């Protein structure tokens, strides 16, 4: 019989314990070996970079269907037609953002889809393409516009910063000095005064082709302010109606019809809502035609447009007047009032205000610096 009285507890335990301890310690070093194989963490910087490129270098995308409005001009009822956000003026002008797109993009709501894009779902579907939290901020002329959560302080996040230029909208201000210099005030003792504005889209798009400096009414908001009307009150003035006259050269046609699109009605006397006509006017009128309106006209083959305003005075006297409406406003014939598109014969008594590239007439689109930051986590 083997005598194993000596191979007992203490020695065995001692030896086995030493072995076990070493074994456990070695086992704990295995995760260190496997670090190189761990599942890749999400590269938030890549998502931030991608988002930055889409915002700064891409003009965005909308459904390809008639009437081909750009994504930012769709109203809140048709938001789903904007497929992807992008703030650049065009594909050929990276780092130059369009004011209208910036305004639309940062018009954010958390609940009411009728007010703007809903955060976060609308943004995740159209820009982030993933279930990340994000923050997009734009520093523009000292103001910071922002979409998204507050950036975390304790965790790291993916980040990119881009330097951009923002293209402002063009606008025109027709004030007293301008009216006087250009003889827009007629002192004929009549009750009805007619004022017209000429917007020739084809000429505007043809004279300057660089999208960064172009005046583009079908795609960018333009504003015409008629001010200082209180200098000429008689005592009361009414903006009775607005007509639109369209000129087509080939085949030659010129038609006038009333403005019925309520999205293009004027703002009168600094009001926040568009006014339907007739409307009393005391001081100023602001015409902010919806770009979709010009877009529709262009789609219909018309690029040359006159906006004709009719004012009715309580007493005959001098007022804003640059158009000889023939035979009269209600039955206006565009060919005799303005010019014949086919023959080119012009009515010398009509001198419409031309929305063009001369700085003394129209404040041109200017480019100003801005900084865009994207954070994703």
């Amino acid at each position: 019989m083997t005598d194993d009285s000596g191979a007992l507890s203490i020695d065995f335990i001692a030896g086995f314990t030493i072995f076990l301890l070493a074994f456990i310690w070695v086992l704990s070093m295995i995760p260190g070996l496997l670090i190189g194989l761990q599942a890749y963490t999400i590269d938030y910087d890549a998502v931030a970079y991608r988002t930055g490129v889409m915002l700064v270098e891409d003009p965005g995308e909308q459904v390809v269907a008639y009437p081909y409005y750009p994504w930012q001009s769709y109203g809140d009822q048709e938001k789903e037609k904007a497929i992807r956000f992008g703030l650049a003026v065009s594909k050929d002008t990276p780092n130059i953002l369009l004011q209208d797109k910036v305004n639309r993009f940062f018009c954010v709501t958390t609940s009411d889809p009728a007010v703007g894009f809903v955060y976060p779902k609308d943004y995740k579907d159209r820009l982030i393409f993933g279930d990340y939290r994000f923050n997009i901020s734009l520093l523009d002329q000292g103001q910071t516009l922002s979409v998204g959560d507050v950036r975390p302080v304790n965790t790291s996040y993916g980040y990119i910063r881009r330097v951009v230029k923002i293209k402002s909208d063009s606008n025109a201000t027709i004030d007293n000095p301008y009216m006087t210099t250009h003889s827009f005030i007629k002192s004929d003792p009549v009750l009805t005064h007619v004022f017209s504005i000429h917007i020739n889209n084809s000429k505007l798009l043809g004279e300057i082709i660089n999208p960064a400096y172009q005046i583009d009414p079908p795609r960018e908001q333009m504003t015409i302010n008629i001010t200082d009307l209180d200098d000429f009150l008689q005592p009361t003035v009414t903006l009775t109606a607005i007509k639109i006259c369209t000129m087509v050269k080939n085949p030659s046609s010129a038609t006038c019809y009333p403005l019925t699109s309520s999205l293009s009605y004027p703002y009168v006397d600094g009001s926040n809502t568009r006014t339907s006509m007739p409307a009393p006017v005391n001081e100023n009128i602001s015409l902010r035609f919806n770009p979709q309106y010009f877009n529709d006209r262009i789609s219909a083959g018309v690029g040359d447009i006159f906006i004709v305003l009719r004012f009715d005075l309580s007493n005959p006297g001098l007022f804003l007047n640059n158009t000889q409406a023939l035979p009269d406003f209600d039955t206006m014939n565009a060919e005799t009032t303005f010019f014949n598109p086919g023959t080119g014969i012009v009515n010398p008594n009509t001198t419409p205000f031309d929305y063009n590239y001369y700085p003394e007439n129209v404040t041109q689109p200017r480019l100003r610096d801005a900084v865009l930051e994207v954070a994703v986590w």
Partner: protein
Amino acid sequence: MARLNDDAQWIVLMGFIVSFSFFFLALVINQSTVVGQTTAESVIEFPKNDIRDVREAIGKSMKVSSGFEDVRSDIRIISMNRKSAVVNYTNSSATSPATIWIHYNNGVTEYNETWTKF
């Protein structure tokens, strides 16, 4: 003859088994090292800004009032010298229809573009 007492050799055996399996694991991991490229590296490697920039410079050079050849030599030689990229372009108004041909090659990425005026 007294046999060597090999009662506890199983402990050493366990030790050896663990060691060998450790070695094997290391071998397997060593063979499975994944070589990849992070997104940031691909972004840096692709010369997006370079190509865009040289395209715009070439476009502007087409509109200079004089010295087109000087500007073209500037772009070609400075590009080779400072950017390590071969850039060449032509403004072939001699051919009909007039074409512009742009070539860029920085050793990793090559870019060709042809414009034809009708």
